[in-house]
């Protein structure tokens, strides 16, 4: 099957799986976990098939499916992937089963928990493939709702507050985005991302806004800018961009670790993906107008979140802040790319944008592994996960500390592991485009090293804290759970071309369209 239905098929498989799970009887609940893992892995076959048929040299959409849905409103079911989409699908396919594997067998209400998780997976696949605003938005929200319930029902002591904060905050962003798109639709009658991007390039979008939209005494340009801000808000909250990040630490800390894995591993990439797929192509002019403050906000995201991470005492909050910091590099790269320059500096921009996408992927793997390790620790300590609550764990759990140590070094960007390449490419590109922003952002790299090594120092080293003298090392199952992630850290650290080969043509095409 050369793919006319492949994307839809693999998108809806987890949804179907979730529905099947809901029909399980009470006494069959034990099967829920294994069912969920199987259903979450079935799409892997499809994604691998896509990957094998994917033509690396081609820049455009591949495997696209197009069916009229509500023609009178310009709504089509339209999905397809390019290099960026494929990489995000790969990431989802790696992280979600990884998270399900690491979910405890003793979890309460397994049937509903796993069903929600599978719904979430469908939402993620849909978000990364949909090309028409209408159903893209449905998927975008579809991923939000299960995540809310997963936090609300299975989270830590402060879960209710965290869940509401997460939901309301992101929903607020989504509403702003929805209103902006409805306004655009009322002006153009188009929901299709690609058509909208074309219209933006040709000036048709501005013309349509001028003709059809009025808002007080604002000019068309100003109205477009307001619409841009609306969409920007939606993505800025999701990524997040400083100062819209305050929901994140509480959410990641209160969510069960296996949910945090997907939150940071994949869901945080939805925002960056939105920037790349939607905001940059449709609003390039507005983006350029707002570039300077945005660049500095990205720098602030990097530096302040690194410092804030250093101030935290809860391991999960530290990693949550570190997540903000790492996505800050993505934002820095993708803002810098929009800079209009003398000469086209194509190779610098290509370096930065390749770096951004690489960083999305690599951070997904590393950060989810880190949350997985904290989850493992939490399970053994009975929910205790303070920075100062442990000590000398290397003696009692050497394998755990060794593997988590590798993940930590991957996170701080040690060359030879996956974290380095993306950061290097981002910095390489940004340095030529916005030297000072790049130079100041290296401070983030330094502080990251400080707080991550503090974890190694306080948790793993020193005399054994007698309270944890009996802590058990990783079990066989746990080793098998984390082994693929660790292997990928080495693989993509040494051979990053695997990934860059997939995305580079997409990146080049994107840049050519952006710099018309």
């Amino acid at each position, binding site marked *: 099957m050369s793919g006319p239905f492949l994307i839809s098929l693999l998108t809806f498989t987890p949804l179907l799986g979730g529905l099947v799970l809901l029909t399980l009887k009470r006494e069959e609940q034990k099967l829920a976990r294994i069912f969920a893992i199987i259903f979450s892995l079935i799409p892997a076959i499809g994604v691998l098939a896509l990957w094998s048929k994917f033509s690396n040299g081609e820049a455009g959409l591949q495997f696209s499916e197009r069916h009229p849905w509500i023609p009178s409103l310009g709504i089509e079911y339209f999905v397809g992937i390019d290099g960026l989409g494929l990489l995000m699908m790969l990431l989802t396919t790696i992280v979600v089963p990884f998270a399900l594997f690491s979910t405890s067998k003793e979890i309460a209400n397994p049937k509903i928990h796993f069903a929600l998780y599978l719904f979430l997976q469908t939402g993620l696949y849909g978000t990364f493939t949909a090309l028409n605003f209408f159903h893209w938005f449905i998927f975008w929200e579809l991923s939000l709702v299960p995540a809310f319930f997963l936090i609300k029902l299975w989270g830590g002591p402060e879960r209710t507050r965290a869940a509401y*904060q997460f939901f*309301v*905050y992101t929903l607020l962003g989504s509403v702003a985005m929805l209103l902006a798109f409805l306004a655009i639709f009322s002006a153009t009658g188009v929901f299709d991302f690609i058509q909208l991007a074309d219209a933006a390039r040709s000036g048709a979008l501005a013309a349509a806004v001028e003709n059809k939209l009025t808002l007080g005494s604002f000019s068309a340009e100003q109205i477009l800018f307001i619409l841009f801000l609306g969409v920007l808000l939606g993505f800025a909250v999701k990524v997040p961009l400083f*100062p819209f*990040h*305050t*929901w994140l*630490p509480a959410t990641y800390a209160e969510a069960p670790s296996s949910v945090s894995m997907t939150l940071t591993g994949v869901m945080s990439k939805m925002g960056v993906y939105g920037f790349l797929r939607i905001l940059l192509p449709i609003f390039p002019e507005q983006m350029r107008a707002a570039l300077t403050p945005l660049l500095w906000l990205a720098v602030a995201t990097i*530096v*302040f*979140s*690194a*410092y*804030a991470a*250093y*101030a*935290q005492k809860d391991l999960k909050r530290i990693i949550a802040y570190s997540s903000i910091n790492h996505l800050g590099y993505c934002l820095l790269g993708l803002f810098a790319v929009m800079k209009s320059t003398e000469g086209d500096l*194509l*190779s*610098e*921009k*290509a*370096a930065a944008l*390749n770096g951004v996408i690489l960083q999305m992927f690599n951070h997904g793997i590393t950060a989810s592994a880190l949350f997985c390790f904290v989850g493992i620790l939490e399970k053994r300590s009975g929910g205790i996960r303070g920075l100062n609550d442990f000590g*000398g764990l*290397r*003696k009692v759990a050497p394998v755990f500390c060794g593997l988590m140590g590798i993940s930590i*070094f991957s996170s701080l960007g*040690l*060359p*030879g592991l996956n974290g380095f390449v993306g950061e290097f*490419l981002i*910095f*390489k590109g940004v*340095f030529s485009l916005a*030297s000072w922003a*790049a130079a100041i952002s*290296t*401070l983030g*790299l*330094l502080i990251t*090293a*400080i707080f991550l*090594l*503090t974890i*190694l*120092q306080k948790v*793993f*080293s*020193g*005399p*054994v804290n007698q309270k944890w003298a009996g802590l058990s090392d990783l079990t066989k199952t746990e080793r098998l759970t984390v082994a693929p992630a660790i292997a990928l850290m080495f693989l993509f650290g040494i051979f*990053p*071309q695997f990934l*860059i*080969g997939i995305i*580079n043509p997409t*990146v*080049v095409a994107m*840049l050519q369209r952006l710099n018309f």
Partner: protein
Amino acid sequence: MTWIAKNLWLIPVLPLVAAGLSALLKQSQRRAAASLAIGSLAISFLLACCAFAATLHAPVHGEVFRQTPSFTWLQFGESSLRLGTVLDPLTAIMLVMVTFVGLLIFIYSTGYMAHDKNFTRFFCFLALFAAAMLGIIISNNLLLLFISWELVGLASYLLIGFWYHKPSAAAAAKKAFITTRIGDMGFFIGILWLYSQTGTLLFYDHGNGCLEATALTKLVSTTTLGGMAVSTAIALLIFCGAIGKSGQVPLHVWLPDAMEGPTPVSALIHAATMVAAGVFLVARCYPIFEVSSIASLIRFGIPAPPPSLAIQVVTWIGAITAVFAALIAVAQTDIKRILAYSTVSQLGFMMIGLGVGGVAVGMFHLITHAFFKALLFLGAGSVIHGCHEEQDIRRMGGLKKFMPLTFATYAIGMMALSGVPLFFSGFWSKDEILHAAHNWSVSQIPFYLAAFGALLTAFYMTRQVCYVFLGQNKSHHKPHESPRVMTVPLTILAAFTILLGIIGTPVWPWFETYLSGHHATFDFARLTEKETLSTMLLSVVIVAVGIGSAWAIYSKVSLKPADAADPLEAIQPRVFNLLRNKFFIDELYAVTVLRLNAVLTQFADWLDQAVWGGIVKAFSSLAIGLSWLSRTVDEQVVNLGFNQGCESVRDSSKAVSKIQDGKIQHYLRYIGIALVVLALALIWGCRS
């Protein structure tokens, strides 16, 4: 291309594979781990010798042997990033030195670490360290060099913190990693800048590399902030990395603390590898440092242009470090810390050498120092081992009798470090630095600083030997000589400490000619050239004064009890206290840099908690307030009115409903009354 140049990558990859394999071994498979590490490094050593042999003959007189295979690592946009290796004399001599000294340290470690529980892990880390260091040496690409550089940082982190159960070791490891990373951030920016300017990071690429004329011309002809040439700015940023790694002022603070690691690690870090990396980096990137104007690129331009700003900075930092660290070393009492500060000081000498005399001068001291400092550290390890883990020199004394072989080899190392003339390599390499500094066109101050540093070196080494080996033993246990596996490497290192001097004398300057692609010739006339002899005489005097004064003060010191004040302390207690506390630099950093960091941390946290969190809270309070208001309005106004309306209706209907109570007799009564009333009314009406 020669076979060895093509396969140069094997030299670091072999120990790397050994490290990977021994990471998978169990704690009990000690022999396997040691064999893997030693075997792989031995093969690397043989390969390094092959590489060395290949570079011995320059293809053309005056042009160095250089072969540079490369491969594409990344392709982004239309451009690609190539990595590669380079085989030239600089690489070859470093390879031989690192593999050879490393091998001896590995062998020594099997004895020193024999009783350690984590023996297997130790050899895994050692092999990783060697691999990363060799990676730095063979890189023909600044990025590949940086990658290896960071891996060296990782390996030293793991080794310094090897005894992780000691909080001090864990703290020292973290301090080493962070301090060097501060320098590395500058280095990283330098790499980015160089890349954006030249479009390549390959050093040599048949005319297109970043160290070759085309790129250098571009770098030197572009200016940046304050009219500085971009080449200077980039060189200074790269030098930041070297400052961190080579423990130069002001980033020297991590190096003495790194003594928390096992002693062979100190030898490996302080002698052969890690700290040499910074000096090697400057030597490797020397063309960027050196270039000061377009004119300076023309080889035979006369007169020679003044040294570039970057080179001057290197010289000054080196000179300051050389004296600063030597002063501190004078007042230390831990045998390894004295050597650590000595290393910092000697690295300063190497930097002076690079600055005033060029690559050959600095590198020659690096090579000779690697041998005698490894010898001294391993000797110190032997002393510590023999004295049952005692590190305080005041509690030793009289070890000459108990450890004769250790004493003999240590004395050779000490004399080489002090620069005792003619028979010791340290004399020749240090003399060359002093000579070059004396002829430096910019200033004579580095020369005087270096001379003073040399005097202090002779002083503190004599002091140390007096404390440790002379007089009476003061420990509770009887010291013993170390096993053969430890003393044999000492002997070999001692032999090389003496022999190496031969290749760098003014009479036969083989080392210098080898690096520049010439052929060395014997010429006694060079001794009388340009104040060569007078400088040599001066350095003899310096050594004599240093050793003599220390001997006068300390020769009887170990006859005194261990807790007696140092003779110098008795003379100048305040100065001595200042030196003993390392000029309070750590304390200074604690109240400045670390405090600033803490403040920024608190600020970032406060910003989130109070400001952004506050704004969010304000918005949510506003939302909650509005909903409360609307509820209140609903309940108090709308509902109240509605309720009252309802109630009045209900009340009235209640009254009415009372009539309709469903009791038939009441209804009949009402009907009866009504009938009566009706009948009365009719009657009343009809009557009229």
